[in-house]
């Protein structure tokens, strides 16, 4: 009986988180189009609903009713599996993200502000996010098209190159909080803006942000889907719902990496000042995530796309050494701090 209730609550929690994330994904596309057009002195979507507010709905319906085409030369099984292989890792990471501080107590049932708090949360997210690259690579290969294949290859190269500095940048917060659990990490940053890891790890934060943009194939690192060279990159041959899966995955990944950035560097749901703690933690969390998402779009409107060799050189020759040095320095400082604390 008790197990049944636990399972039911967990399933409902998963459904709620999934619903919220997918709604955010839908309106993130809208926000992106609106912010981009504002920055380019345009209006953006205006036709569906007031100020185009129902545009994501219309887009979704359109994609849903579109014909699902599998190219004649494609490998059908892998072609069908690839979008799912991309979307699932993007959504699965939200399982460990702590959205708020307080659990909701209804009778004997405790509803936590996260689906689960496993003690290797960050490792889990990193592992799954690199799984997403397989979907892109396989989708590009299975399409049997040169543009898709090139897009997939580029994506694989890019994700592998930027996975390393991304992981190394997160080592800083892990060392400081002495935990891989996202909840512990957030708690370790409590007490004010000066306790946030962005203050003690600014270099790691910048590296993380750059790598996160590269990981999610966003501008200025959107070479896998560079439309001026590769039509649409790895999803050139995709249409209808399969295409929308790739799209959902891209935006879900954006939200996920923003969530991790907020947890690891911006104090999660912690208020910036102890005096501001009367505002619910979830509001702080969402505000920070929204700011980072806005930053992503802002950057997209500002910076042009890199050349591929520039991207690779930047990843291996600049990001990786700086990340390594950062890990080294952080470890040394942390070691001596611990020594000092023990005395």
């Amino acid at each position: 009986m008790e197990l049944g209730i636990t399972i039911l609550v967990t399933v409902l929690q998963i459904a709620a988180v999934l619903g919220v994330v997918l709604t955010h994904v839908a309106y993130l596309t809208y926000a992106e189009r609106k912010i981009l057009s504002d920055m380019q002195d345009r209006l953006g979507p205006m036709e569906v609903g007031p100020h185009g507010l129902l545009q994501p709905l219309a887009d979704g319906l359109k994609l849903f009713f579109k014909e699902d085409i599998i190219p004649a030369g494609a490998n059908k099984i892998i072609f069908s599996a690839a979008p799912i292989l991309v979307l699932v890792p993007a959504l699965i990471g939200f399982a460990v993200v702590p959205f708020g501080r307080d659990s909701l107590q209804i009778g004997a049932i405790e509803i936590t502000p996260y689906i689960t708090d496993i003690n290797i949360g960050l490792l889990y997210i990193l592992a799954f996010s690199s799984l997403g690259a397989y979907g892109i690579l396989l989708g590009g290969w299975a399409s049997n098209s040169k543009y898709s294949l090139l897009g997939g290859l580029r994506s694989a190269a890019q994700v592998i190159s930027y996975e390393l500095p991304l992981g190394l940048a997160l080592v800083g917060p892990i060392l400081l909080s002495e935990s891989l659990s996202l909840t512990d990490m957030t708690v370790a940053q409590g007490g004010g803006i000066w306790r946030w890891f962005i203050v003690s790890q600014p270099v790691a934060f910048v590296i993380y942000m750059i790598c996160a943009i590269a990981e999610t194939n966003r501008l200025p690192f959107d070479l896998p889907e560079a439309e001026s060279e590769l039509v649409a990159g790895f999803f050139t041959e995709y249409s209808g719902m399969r295409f929308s899966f790739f799209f959902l995955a891209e935006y879900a990944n954006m939200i996920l990496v923003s969530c991790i950035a907020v947890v690891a560097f911006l104090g999660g749901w912690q208020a910036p000042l102890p005096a501001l703690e009367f505002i619910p933690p979830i509001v702080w969390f969402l505000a920070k995530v929204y700011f980072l998402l806005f930053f992503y779009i802002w950057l997209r409107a500002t910076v042009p796309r890199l050349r591929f060799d520039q991207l690779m050189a930047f990843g291996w020759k600049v990001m990786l050494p700086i990340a390594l040095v950062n890990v080294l320095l952080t470890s040394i400082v942390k070691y001596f701090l611990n020594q000092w604390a023990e005395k």
Partner: protein
Amino acid sequence: MTGKELFKKAVFYEILQGLGLTFKHMLFGKTMTEQYPREKPSLPDGWRGAIVQLRYDDGSEKCVGCALCEAACPSHCITVESAEREDMPQKRYSKRYTLDMTRCVFCGFCVQACPVTALASSKEYELATTDKRELIMEMDDLLKLGDKYFPIREKRPQYTEDRFNFFKQNKASGFPVAHVPVVNVPIAKKGAA
């Protein structure tokens, strides 16, 4: 590389500048978009839109059926069939005036050619239609468009009135016929010389 340059590179100075510019445009940028069907553009006065026919202030059409517009038209889209008016002999009008808007190039030569300024370029530019035949415009259509775009009409010249009165007075009694003296000129025969 000086220390200043290194510092600028480390804090992504140029990218920050770019971010500042885009942010400025987001907050203060003037939107260039025109919400077209709901928001019409303001056209300059010299706009050469659809050619229309005009009327005098008493509602009579200006066109005298001279077909100079037909002669001036470079794309041969105007056809004028001219006739004499029943009630006013010597006064001509266009019995049938057709302007094929599908072929019109909006050059305005016909407007320049018209001796009585019966033609004008309007600001009508939304000529899209599902039936191409609607664009082959007869006199009625052209006058209707002219009424829409040129509500202020020119006053009918007085000399025309005088001639009307002249004809009205003399219709019953018969028109005066000018006397032309007949002069017989002998025709020279071939081979007479």
